[in-house]
């Protein structure tokens, strides 16, 4: 028998508003109403400002290690904009903008990175999961959440975010395989920002696109300009339709760039070229929307100045709210351990004994919790 072709495939790439101000009127028509566009622009601006402030807070010792989101705002924002309020948003740590859009009070994010678990104590109505630090683990949780929603006969779907590096973890492959083979409505959103700390993308994936990994699992997939809010919204609409109407998963590769360091504990100048960073500064998701809105005549310099003032005041208020929350008490660490606290743990809580086995509890003084 002759050798035949078992599969030919292609990966679509979507770009609607590019960094030169070119707008694809056909794809972009009616995609985002002007009023919404202004609002999304304002949200990105606030997120960017908070990112700058968080960096300074860390440098001045008022916050722990913090991962900046700078340059990647459009990805999670575009997703949250398209999702329903009760769809699951299962993120890692570069999705602040989408979380704020969903309604997460920004001081929660600051509180978390200031080193306070209560930053992850989120109103369940927001359908947001705690920030995932172990890389990749959240993708399976998203798959489980969507599966459970399907099990309960709900129309909710899940959207999970992860980096290019995370696609090397087994959890990624297992989540993709499950979702595809068991018809689970999950949108897998990879923020390909080209770097995993100092490791370039080609060490994680030697194929020309990350998007094509989905094909191996039999999953629909698309690549989008992740710095283009229009492209993200376009791709998310496709994904959400497939997930909600047909119960199928979808993969989106958002091609973006981490303009800042990996975290405040990193110095990216050590391993990447300034020219590369500069190139991506030109592709900033915020700048292109601003220019486009000016072109449309719905934005101008005075509006921009007013926004900057407003963002300044709002972020200052957010920081103030985060810092005015009192340090947790050591009772707090026992309180959420079990549905009902078992007697041995209760003894530890009452004596602050923290398990000095053999000591007579009555002999142990109860120390005052020191301040933050």
């Amino acid at each position: 028998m002759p050798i035949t072709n078992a599969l030919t495939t292609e990966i679509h790439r979507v770009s609607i508003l590019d960094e030169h101000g070119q707008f694809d009127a056909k794809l972009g028509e009616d995609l985002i109403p002007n009023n919404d566009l202004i609002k999304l622009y304002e949200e990105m601006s606030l997120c960017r400002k908070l990112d700058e402030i968080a960096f300074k807070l860390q440098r001045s010792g008022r916050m722990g290690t913090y991962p900046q989101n700078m340059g990647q705002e459009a990805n999670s924002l575009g997703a949250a904009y398209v999702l329903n309020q009760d769809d699951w948003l299962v993120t890692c740590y570069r999705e602040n903008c989408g979380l704020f859009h969903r309604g997460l009070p920004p001081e929660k994010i600051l509180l978390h990175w200031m080193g306070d678990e209560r930053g992850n104590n989120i109103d369940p109505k927001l359908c947001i999961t705690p920030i995932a630090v172990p890389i990749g683990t959240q993708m399976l949780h998203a798959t489980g959440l969507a599966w459970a929603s399907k099990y309960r006969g709900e129309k909710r779907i899940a959207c999970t975010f992860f980096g290019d590096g995370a696609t090397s973890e087994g959890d990624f492959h297992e989540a993709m395989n499950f979702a595809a083979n068991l018809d689970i409505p999950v949108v897998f959103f990879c923020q390909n920002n080209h770097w995993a700390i100092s490791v370039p993308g080609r060490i994680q994936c030697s194929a020309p696109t990350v998007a094509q990994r989905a094909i191996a699992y039999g999953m629909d997939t698309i690549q989008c300009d992740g710095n283009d809010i229009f492209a993200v919204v376009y791709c998310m609409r496709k994904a959400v339709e497939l997930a909600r109407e047909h119960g199928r998963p979808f993969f989106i590769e958002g091609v973006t760039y981490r303009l800042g360091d990996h975290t405040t504990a990193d110095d990216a100048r050590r391993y990447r070229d300034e020219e590369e960073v500069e190139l991506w500064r030109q592709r900033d998701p915020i700048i292109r929307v601003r220019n486009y809105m000016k072109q449309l005549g719905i934005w101008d310099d005075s509006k921009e100045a007013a926004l900057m003032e407003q963002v300044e005041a709002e972020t200052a208020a957010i920081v103030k709210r985060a810092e005015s929350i009192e340090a947790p008490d050591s009772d707090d660490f026992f309180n959420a351990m079990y549905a009902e606290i078992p007697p041995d743990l209760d003894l530890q809580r009452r004596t602050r004994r923290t398990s000095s086995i053999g000591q007579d509890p009555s002999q142990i003084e109860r120390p005052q919790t020191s301040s933050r």
Partner: protein
Amino acid sequence: MSERIIEFRDALREAMSQEMRRDPRVFLLGEEVAEYDGAYKVSRGMLEEFGPRRIIDTPISESGFAGLAIGAAMLGLRPIVEFMSWSFSLVAADPILNNAPKMLYMSGGQFGCPIVIRGNDGAGGQLGSTHSWCVEGMFSNVPGLKMAIPAFPDDAKGMLATAIRDDDPVFFLESERLLAMKGHVPEGDYYVPFGKAVVRRPGTDVTLVSFGRPVHFCLDAAEELAKEGISCEVIDGRTIRPLDIDTIVKSVKKTNGCVVVDQSWSFGSPGSEVAAQVHAHCFDDLDNHVMRVHSADVPSPYAANLEQEYLPNARRIAEAVRSALYVA
């Protein structure tokens, strides 16, 4: 004692580099170990000296590179696997617990597994509960592996060199909090044998036994207690597997008291093992039962104030010692 003073992290690197120069079978792999010099700069300069064939940046795939290293060890190579943090070894549980420690056993002695797995272990860096694992309690339960946990720079070098030469899998636990600590470290070949505890401070009233970073908490507590006229003997166990119970027993027979300090959770831990063995060996010598100071029975807290309270700190150790000596 060596004249030269270097940091704990440099001592670790020196052990790896010296063994790599000596033995072409040794190589290092893990996330960020090459271009970035390691997340904690332990492998600084090693890429330059040994090249990318032997200093290997891996994809973010702990299960992947741990499993791969085991395969390489089965063919006689001597991999050093760096986990950025032992916390991330949890996604590689099967290769490191279900394969490495029993490869020799399951192959009837055919395939050894001379692998060293090293990385940052323990809380204290305010990294939150998923990033602050202290794995000695959980992993020391597994037969077939060795576990070393140095508390001083010279041991860091001598014990890591011994680990690399060892024919069995060695879990090597480093505290990020100690990496910048300076100390006298011998130049040239230097090996510290496994299973040999050391007395860090001689004393007469009570024996404090600990492993890794909490040895320093014990020394701090001993200093405080000395002001109250209490003399503590502090033992640094150095390796948890093998455990040098003889040195501990000898000391307890002298002091007639024992407090074990262990940064693991209390339930089924190195601390409970030491306490049980001391009770068995020294039942008639003890003036009180063995007391144990552990981390609180909760995930490591994120908040700085709570994290310090959570750890088996010097204040809690001193309290336990007073209790043990009936001077509360």
